[in-house]
């Protein structure tokens, strides 16, 4: 009887919490389109922990903590990965060329049918209550908010813009918080649902070798085919759209973006246009995305963050410095409206333009090396737009509501892989 139920359970889509290591961000994203597994946002909802690629040394402990957050029965699949923190898990290892979906399904099936034991916790079972107070039950302090009940301190009062001095809750997000790119860690202080202070405490995903290099990074050192470069740009924008749409609750249209990124061909700018119209019809510009006030706009306008800067009134685009692009009649897309919605419009416009350029470029190659316009803005040896954007994150999100803050960060299209790869180029 039990086995009948277990077989039915094994037929379910395997709920997977994926940790995207260096260079594997898009490979993990492609799993959204796979049949038979579901990517979930919280490890509590998952049965399988999928670790894709190498994780930097700082992330081992966090990966282990995520592992321990999964309910029993649980299993780990290491896909082209050998992170230190998960060494004791008894995990399934598969190579970079293996099919992660089939492997995950097999492990999941084994696990549910009882053929594979549930993995024990990795981190030592040490109670965080290192100090116990003097309260009558031993867990409290002497005052009402003093002490560290159950091993954690309580939030402390802080001033607030509306004059009520209430608790400001310190919140550590990441490195594996689904709405942020894997590896990004934020320390927020939130008062109610408003972020009053933000700090970036980690932006490492792996080594530069593991992060690999995109066509844009290669274009720094040697000429690249403009057609390839522009198609890569369009795909990057569509993949970004898939992430950003998911954050706004539009999962189905997000899959459409991924599918489009996979199938888009040079010259098919009409497909991008149709997609952009579908996005517009969801009302996302009207009621879902926050405004960007003038202070933030002026911060971003001259930061050379590609579509972000151009949506905030900037005009810079490295492609303007390349005669090959000028010969194609290239002019950057500016003046696209207001707020975060403008960044979305700018990216869709640029994706459409890139597809169009790719069809007209023929065999033209770039003629300028040293700096390039990546989908995220100006890149150069050792100078990544993501690194510049991270410096703005605190100023951008302070004072915003939680959802608005995350939508604003998503609009920046932070790419830690590109950042790591560019850091590697300087070293070399």
């Amino acid at each position, binding site marked *: 009887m039990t086995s009948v139920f277990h077989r039915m359970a094994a037929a379910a889509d395997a709920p997977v919490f994926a940790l995207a290591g260096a260079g594997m961000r898009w490979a993990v994203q492609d799993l959204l389109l796979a049949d038979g597994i579901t990517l979930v946002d919280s490890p509590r909802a998952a049965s399988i922990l999928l670790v894709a690629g190498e994780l930097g040394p700082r992330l081992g402990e966090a990966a282990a903590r995520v592992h321990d957050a999964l309910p029993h029965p649980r299993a780990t699949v290491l896909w082209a990965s050998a992170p230190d923190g998960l060494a004791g898990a008894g995990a399934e290892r598969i190579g970079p060329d293996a099919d992660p979906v089939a492997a995950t399904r097999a492990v999941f099936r084994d696990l549910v049918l009882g053929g594979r034991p549930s993995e024990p916790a990795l981190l030592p079972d040490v109670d965080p209550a290192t100090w116990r107070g003097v*309260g009558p039950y031993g867990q*409290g*302090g002497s005052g*009402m908010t*003093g002490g560290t*009940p*159950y091993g954690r301190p309580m939030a402390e009062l802080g001033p607030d813009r509306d*004059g*009520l001095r*209430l608790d400001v809750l310190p919140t550590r997000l990441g490195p594996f918080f689904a709405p942020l790119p894997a590896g990004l860690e934020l320390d927020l202080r939130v008062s109610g649902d408003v972020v009053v202070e933000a700090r970036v405490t980690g932006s490492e995903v792996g080594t530069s070798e593991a992060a690999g290099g995109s066509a844009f990074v290669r274009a720094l050192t040697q000429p690249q085919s403009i057609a390839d470069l522009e198609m890569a740009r369009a795909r990057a924008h569509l993949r970004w759209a898939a992430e950003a749409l998911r954050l706004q609750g539009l999962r189905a249209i997000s899959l459409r973006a991924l599918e489009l990124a996979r199938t888009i061909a040079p010259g098919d700018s009409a497909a991008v246009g149709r997609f952009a119209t579908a996005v517009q019809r969801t009302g996302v510009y009207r009621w879902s995305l926050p405004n960007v006030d003038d202070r933030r706009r002026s911060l971003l306008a001259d930061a050379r963050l590609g579509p972000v800067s151009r949506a905030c009134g900037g005009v810079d685009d490295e492609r303007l410095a390349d005669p090959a692009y000028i010969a194609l009649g290239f002019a950057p897309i500016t003046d696209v409206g207001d707020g975060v919605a403008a960044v979305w419009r700018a990216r869709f416009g640029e994706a459409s333009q890139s597809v169009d350029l790719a069809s007209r470029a023929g065999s033209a190659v770039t003629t300028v090396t040293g700096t390039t316009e990546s989908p995220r803005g100006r890149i150069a040896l050792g100078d990544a737009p993501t690194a510049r954007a991270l410096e703005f994150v605190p100023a951008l999100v302070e004072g915003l509501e939680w959802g608005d803050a995350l939508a604003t960060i998503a609009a920046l299209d932070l790419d830690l892989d590109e950042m790591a790869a560019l850091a590697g180029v300087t070293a070399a």
Partner: protein
Amino acid sequence: MTGALIDLSFAAFSLVAIVAGVRVFRTDSMVRAAFYLLASFAATGGIMVLLGAEFLGMVLILMMAGEMLVMAIVMVMYMMNPAGLNPMVMVHQPRTAVVAGVIAFLAIAGVGLSGEVPSRPAPDPAAATAELGRELLGNSMLVFQTAGVTLLATMVGAIAIAAPRGRHGDAAEGSEEPGLQPDEEASA
């Protein structure tokens, strides 16, 4: 519903109302306190339904859901240690309070039990809602409209007192003590 079932329901509702009422003051968690109070109100609403005051009972339950949610939210906002993570004693003069509570109970219960309660049951509880409606529009029209004005005054007053900002500027304005030097005021 049969008599025995009514008695049973009444006993259950009474138990919930009283036990939850006591728990309100015996729990460390503010959210629990508010929801215990809600349980007490809901059980009281149940007793009212048993008494035949179906509309009043259900409306009490409906209204209290919203009010207790606000209560929980406000309590958590302003109370130190709102979830009771540190055990605490937040009472003063407990003995006096207990004595006063018991005296109040005995006095009212005594009056209720000793006095002769006339037996004139409501003739048709089913028509009570319509009767209340006619009462609102007829005899008690003034009470009804007064309630409207009272609620308006409450809304305006509550927002004027509580709102952080408004057309007249920040609420904190003017709550600062005047500075000792005139220039200090200007720089602040």
